[in-house]
């Protein structure tokens, strides 16, 4: 590879960073909290730099989120190796919030008690604002499965919220 190629790749990377650094950072923040979000975002772009030739010209955002998804998974694994408390991990995603309204608090608890796949789907859709096609790319599933899974995840979330509001024993179940 010539040095001119390196320069071209550098420009492409700069553009990628400029456009998407905030979305990637927020993605990491939602899942890791303030303590690790910045490092995780930096790791996402480090991987992106090495894999720049694989970037999807049609949808760089989905490509970056797919990287972020794996980086976050790796962070979780590292954390669990260190301390391994599932509940702690589920809770830390919302650390940056200031005192949240009660309805949010219940929703966050309900989210934390969902299966990781359900939680991720809901967050990618509602918080990260990804399209159905982008979600499919990030999670490595078929596009037509996204709608079905989203529907099921929303139903489960609603059931959790309802049971939390009524204090049903179901709420004591450990998060997945």
């Amino acid at each position, binding site marked *: *590879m010539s*040095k001119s*190629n*390196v320069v071209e790749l550098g420009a492409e990377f700069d553009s990628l*960073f400029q456009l998407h*650094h*905030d979305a990637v*950072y*927020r993605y990491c*923040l*939602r899942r890791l909290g303030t303590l690790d*979000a*910045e*490092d995780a*975002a*930096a*790791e996402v*772009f*480090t*991987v992106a*730099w*090495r*894999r*720049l030739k694989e970037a999807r010209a049609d949808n760089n955002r989905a490509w970056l989120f797919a*990287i972020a*998804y*794996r*980086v976050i*998974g*790796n962070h*979780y*694994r590292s954390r*669990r*190796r*260190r*301390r*391994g*408390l*599932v509940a702690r991990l589920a809770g830390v*995603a*919302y650390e*940056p*919030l200031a005192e*949240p309204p009660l*309805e*949010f608090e219940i*929703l*966050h608890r309900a989210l934390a008690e969902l299966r*990781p*796949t359900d939680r991720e789907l*809901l967050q990618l859709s*509602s*918080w990260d604002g990804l399209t159905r096609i982008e979600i499919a790319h990030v*999670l*490595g599933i078929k596009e037509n499965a996204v709608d079905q899974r989203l529907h099921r995840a*929303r139903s489960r*979330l*609603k059931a959790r919220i309802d049971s939390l509001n009524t204090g049903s024993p179901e709420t004591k179940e*450990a998060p*997945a």
Partner: protein
Amino acid sequence: MIDLLERADPARDANPDFIRLRAKVDERIHRPTAKPGIRRPWLNAAIAFGAVSAIVALVAILRLQQPSIYAPRLDGLGEVPGIEDVVKLASGGVQTAAVDGDTIWVVTALANLLQRISAVSGDLEMTYAIDSHVEGVVVGGGYVWLLGYDNGGEVLRFDSSLGNVDLRLPLGGAPAHGAVWFADNLWVSNDQGQLQRISANGEILETSVGELKGAGLGYLWVNDPSTGLISSVATDGTRGEIVIPTFEGLDTMSGNGVRSVIEAGGRLWLLDGDFPWGTNLSVFDPATGELESFGGTTFGLLAIVEFEGSLWVTSHTDHLLIRVDPETGEVTRFSVPGKAGGVFVADSSLWVSLYHPGSLVRVDPAALLEAGDIVVDDWDRFPHRLLCTGDPAGPRVILEPNSWIDYGSWSVIQAQLSAQGFLVCANGFVDGDATPAERAAALDEGLTEAGISGPYVLVAAVDGVHSARLFAEGRSDIAGVVLVDPIPIGFGDFYDELLPDLDGHPPWADLEETVAGDLGDTPLLVIGHDPTAVFLSRKFIEGAGAEAATTLNRYWREGLEFYSGLSTNSRPLEAEKTGLDYVLWDRPDLVVEAVIEVSTNP
């Protein structure tokens, strides 16, 4: 609902510090060398020219737990299909190995031992104690060169005719990252990206900048800090005649980037250890200048060698030896009985070093068991497999490992039970993040897909007991249960309260107890480790104190009583001379006997 969810986004108004984030990225992608003082997670040491490539930081990446204090009974390894010779080594396993003709030199992981093994006879011929923490070994110039971690990093020249270290050379203030014997010289790069060329008589001929990746095609291959690319170094020291078009050589300190390079079939193969993406194998063709990715293969690739026209790659995380056809790209995975580290060729045979149980094994590739089919690959987890062997019409035995351990841990037990007419299915789920419920569901799904119905004898080790109990819950097809040193309820919390100053309990104590019912009158044997065994290792005791070790051991022993109470038809067993969590390795015979007993117990 959707609106509420959107409004509840905790990061909706959060913005990153652009400059700081960009600085962090730039630091990672433009800095080719180590940050001083950071212990490297991967050490690419001992890339012996044309023979061995091995990663030697196995202690850090495998398990925090130390090996059993007992010498494992390795005899059974020879009964595992495809395993021909077994060379028993010191507990602690192989750190790295190098080949010199028919001699294999091994550095052990924990005990600072250098061992000489005959590749022809498989005999352990000599063991030398080295007065230094040694992490790598390379052979060349009539000497054995050891890469030492002490004194800020040093090279030790070992004279095998005298049986001692006769020369020590400093390594520029950082331990070795990699070493190769090439063009009649020893080339060593350290963690700070300093490359030294050392003559056989111990003279430092040249010091330059670069990070060693391996040798092949008549060149040395070094990460070039000025471009972040891997480029050639000719025998006369000329650099950059060939440049590999990859950025993968950039960031070895975070465990990413190209780990080693070997030549095969006139091309250069690059083993890339990029964790978030799994690992990757790429091939560089010097004729075209093209670099082609072979795609991700599996997690945790460690070492690579060419043997009989195929590439052989070890994967320690899921107990696999992987064969890659360099022409067709076909990938075949084989089960090996332990955590594989190095892979190399000696005496015209393929050898694999197992970190645990510490041994070298000569393998017959044609007789190895292919890994089971993937039955669950969900949520980006590492693939889950079910490996079934034995008589399809025989009584069914399910082996559920503890987390972080794959089904290779059952190899000896599986081979012995299969030989006795059982149909034995080992559940392979290496992802320690999987919850007990997920593991139980995966096991059920795997058995259903394989068409293997009950009744089953269920055997579970350590924290695998949680998923096993969930699997058994509500079923009427469990003929018997054997629990092998099950982890006591609340052990992780007890550990943390007892030892608040240590860095948390071991990872395998992470899984919380899963609520599951009892086993009624199902025949149950609960095998506990040797009651006189101390908790963990001598190293642990040095750190935490003997009293803490005794307390933890007592807690574990008392916890076994809970499990014995799960059935009205149970019996406790003590496995003499077994370490905690090491019953599978130390006394496989006892587990086999237990399975036979519960399967014949009415």
